[in-house]
């Protein structure tokens, strides 16, 4: 019968002991342990969320980068095209101008050459004329210094005139 009759003393001490155990462990063990566990679980949750967010941001960033890269590529394309056009135009312009210039220069040169030629011809003519006159003078002087010769000449001339 003793076995199943709760003793007052043990009930009393169990009550006090368990109450103290509860109060002390609650303050010095369960609170810190559960707090730490909660804290860590929250930390892990937050870290996972942050990682997820970061991943999404990375994706956005990557998409942005892709877009920016594409834009830049297109722009570069356009710029290159423009540059090429400008270059072609410039080259063409330069070519045309050079052609024009060359043509002009050639025309001028030809003109100058013509002028030179003409003046040279005129000079040559004058020169030839004065030279002929000089030669004629000299010949005439030579011829006329000798009587015989003079006669000969006259005769020759006359001869020619006869033929005519």
């Amino acid at each position, binding site marked *: 019968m003793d076995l199943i009759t709760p003793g007052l003393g043990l009930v009393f001490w*169990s009550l006090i002991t368990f109450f*103290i*155990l509860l109060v*002390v462990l609650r303050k*010095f*063990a*369960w609170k810190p*342990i559960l707090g*730490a566990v909660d804290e860590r679980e929250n930390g892990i949750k937050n870290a996972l969320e942050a990682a997820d967010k970061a991943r999404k941001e990375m994706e956005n960033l990557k998409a942005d980068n892709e877009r920016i890269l594409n834009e830049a590529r297109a722009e570069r394309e356009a710029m290159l095209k423009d540059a090429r056009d400008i270059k072609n135009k410039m080259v063409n312009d330069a070519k045309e101008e050079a052609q024009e210039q060359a043509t002009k220069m050639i025309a001028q040169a030809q003109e100058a050459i013509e002028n030179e030629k003409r003046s040279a011809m005129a000079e040559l003519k004058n020169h030839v004329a004065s030279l002929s006159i000089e030669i004629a003078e000299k010949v005439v002087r030579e011829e006329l210094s000798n009587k015989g010769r003079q006669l000969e000449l006259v005769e020759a001339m006359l001869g020619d005139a006869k033929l005519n």
Partner: protein
Amino acid sequence: MTLNTLRAVLFLVFSVAITNSGFASQDNEDQDEGFNATEMIMHHVKDAHEFHIVDWNNEPITIALPIILYTDNGLVTFMSSEFHHDDSGSQIVEKNGERFVKYHEKIYQLGSGVDALAFDEEEHPTNATLPLDFSITKNVFMMWVSVLVLFLIFISAAGKYKKSNNFIPRGIASFVEPLVIFIRDEVAIPMIGEKKYRKFMPFLLSVFFFIWINNIFGLIPILNGANVSGNIAFTLTLALFTFFITMFSGNKNYWKHIFWMPGVPVPMKLFLAPIELIGMFVKPFSLTIRLFANITAGHIIILSLMSLIFTFQSIAIAPVSVGFSLFILIIEIVVVAIQAYIFTVLSALYIGMATAEEDNH
């Protein structure tokens, strides 16, 4: 392989130690009558005023514990050693002009002019009174040892978290934490619910570990001289805690379900009210009996198996006894954890029922 052998040998030694510590005390009283298994077992599972460790050369080696009595003239205290291991009521201790004897682990106060106990037919003393006994018995002593061990384990575990800067459990904390999380995730949250479980966590954790460690100490030889969690006073106290926590945290919905069950016709309401009312008290009662009976039964089985050797007075029976009690011991290791768990789960369940919201059917 060697480890297993070692374990087996250790258990064998321990098992023998159980019997020794159990027998030792009955030697004094029953030396002439031979071996009495019932007496030995009852002596083991019941409380005592001194902590008996072992008999050496027919002299019991014990830890003397303080005896605290509340008599008509106030408190009387003395050490249990003053009885000189006597349990038959012949050693009289005089304190404050009052005289006490110890008979079958009960302390009687002798009336004036009486020198020896007189008994009726059922061996109950007739000429002595029982003062209120608040002694630090071996169960109280063992309970305090277990409390110290719990403080040591859990406060140092809590300290580990303070030292680590990111709440990572180290050392003892990594052993404690899974158990704490188990109670939280498998007991408190499913039974009480996500919203309210926090308030009851300290109670559930304390009760779980308190029962468990006392159950375990009950299995360790020498320490198992004390059968704390197999004592009905201890289990009753813990059940009372559950009962009062349930009472005080019970909401309107809970009381309505007890006294005026919603959703049934009026005659049924009248019929159910007394049943529910009784159920309110049956719950802690079942907690008390379940833990007490399971733990005591385990002790009794192991001791009974060991007693076979002495009942048959043959060493040939020893291997059978040891083998079987080893088997039971291993089962008991599981049982002590399960019983602590069941007590906690049911406490949580009762609290959960008391705090459930209306729509929580």
